[in-house]
């Protein structure tokens, strides 16, 4: 694996270095450089330190693993590939994702998974190990968001989850008794069939971060879906 010491390297230079080769690469001493691996295709990238905003934006097949926390807008509009964060993640993780997978060991900030979408076999998946901030899955149009609520005693998600949701599925490992959902979505206990859908992703989570799959899948999950194909009909105008 090619190794790059990124100390005192600005994002332009780092981007240039990464594009000089297609070899798998490990970055050390990362400190806030933006746009790392933006649009990058098939290769492995290992990151030590704190990558900057928009890590893996438009990612197109590369596999990124971060040993540390990540900042805002990870996987913005990503298309394919995977991002694994051994830590927590800032705001707007997986913004408008349309393919690929993101695994976060810890918590996610505000607006995780907003505007996610899917098309045929392109199914984006965002797995959050800890808790999620407000506006989780806002305007979700497709794909799957899974929140596990591990390592936390607070509510699994803050205010206004699923606002404007009109597609996809959101799974919360909780009975969600205290969570207020908007009128246009349905939150119900996940059935055995629902759980089958998330099985491969929970197993993958345990592969990345350890943890006991049986106890994860054994806990109650709530699944949230939009009410109908057009839940916002007549919300603003009579149409």
């Amino acid at each position: 694996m090619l190794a790059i010491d990124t100390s005192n390297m600005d994002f332009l230079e780092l981007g240039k270095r990464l594009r000089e080769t297609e070899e798998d690469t490990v970055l050390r001493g990362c400190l806030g450089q933006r746009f790392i691996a933006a649009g990058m295709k098939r290769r492995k990238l290992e990151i030590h330190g704190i990558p900057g905003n928009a890590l893996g934006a438009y990612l197109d097949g590369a596999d990124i693993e971060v040993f540390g926390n990540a900042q805002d807008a990870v996987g913005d509009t990503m298309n394919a590939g995977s991002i694994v964060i051994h830590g927590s993640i800032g705001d707007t993780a997986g913004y408008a994702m349309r393919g690929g997978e993101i695994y976060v060991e810890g918590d996610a900030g505000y607006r995780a998974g907003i505007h996610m979408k899917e098309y045929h076999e392109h199914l984006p998946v965002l797995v959050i190990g800890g808790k999620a901030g407000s506006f989780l899955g806002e305007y979700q149009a497709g794909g799957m968001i899974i929140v596990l609520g591990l390592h936390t005693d607070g509510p699994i998600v803050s205010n206004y989850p699923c606002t404007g949701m009109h597609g996809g599925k959101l799974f919360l490992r909780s009975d969600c008794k205290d969570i207020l959902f908007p009128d246009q979505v349905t939150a119900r206990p996940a059935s055995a069939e629902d759980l089958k859908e998330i099985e491969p992703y929970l197993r993958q989570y345990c592969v990345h971060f350890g943890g006991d799959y049986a106890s994860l899948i054994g806990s109650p999950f709530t699944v949230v879906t939009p009410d109908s194909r057009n839940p916002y009909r007549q919300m603003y105008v009579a149409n």
Partner: protein
Amino acid sequence: MSMLEGQIRIPSGCAISAVISREGRRMTGEKIIESMRPMHERSNGLGGGFAGYGIYPEYKDLFALHIFYDGEPCRAACEAYLRDHLEIVKGEIIPTRKIPSITDEPLIWRYFVTPLRSVLASRQLDENEFLARIVMHINTHLQGTYVFSSGKNMGVFKAVGFPEDVGEFYRLEEYEAYCWTAHGRYPTNTPGWWGGAHPFALLDRTIVHNGEISSYDANRRYIEMFGYKCTLQTDTEVITYIADFLQRKQGLSLTELASVIAAPFWSTIKRKPTEEERLKLSFLRKVYPSLLITGPFSIILGFEGGLMALNDRLKLRSMVVGEKDDLTFIASEEAAIRAMEPEAGNIWSPAGGEPVIVTVKEGCY
């Protein structure tokens, strides 16, 4: 002809950061300058600045006025005005370093002053109000003259440039503060000029701000009814005056201040567990509706002996907090905290509208 900055709209964000020692241990400005480097892209070179608390211990009972002058005639006029109201214990040019990245600087002076007792008595004002009125008068009526720092044992240093360069320009390695705040500016709606750089200050309160106040004019119209004048051509200024008004004049606590400017939604208030909380939050929203600040913001309010960080209630800007020993770090990005302290722990992101208040141990500042 190409458009000048200020005639075109440049969209983007800003960078903020802060470090404070809860033990009152004083640090040179180098650490806070380091924090701005990994956030370089958040600024565009049109403004940078710092506030340091505890930097003038030898003059700690005097107000320190930092003033920009457009030229010598402005200085002469202002000093005459100052002498009519204040005893000037010391007046001097603020030492700067000539560097190619900072140009077109105004005259930059500082004065250590105390109100003339006879004038103070005849006005029947306390000295803070007296000083605040002098600052407002100068900034409104004396052309080409801007007081950009006016507290005791603290000071603001700001300029047009990238924050790292501004720190070098003002030789911040020569000052020691128990609390530093910093700002890198990327002006969006208003021109980048020296007076428009952050922090914005009145008495010991300073604000650094990343965001854009949608409610600016509503806030401005309200606050100007109480003797404040917004003269610095940018939205952040009004937050400083709101903090001064609600705390110094209305006697609100920091958490109450946060509940006014980042008031929770009515639907959130309704879901608060205790009646007392619901009543208090409703009361503050109803009494100060015009001081609700809408639009995206993350701010750090500095004051004598502490600071408060706050996000707008929707948290439309990022903010991260970390700790190491007696130090608390706050910044727009975790990378900035790691630049100050690679081993910082307890990293977390406060929720929108949730104030983070850090104070220095009593008697240590």
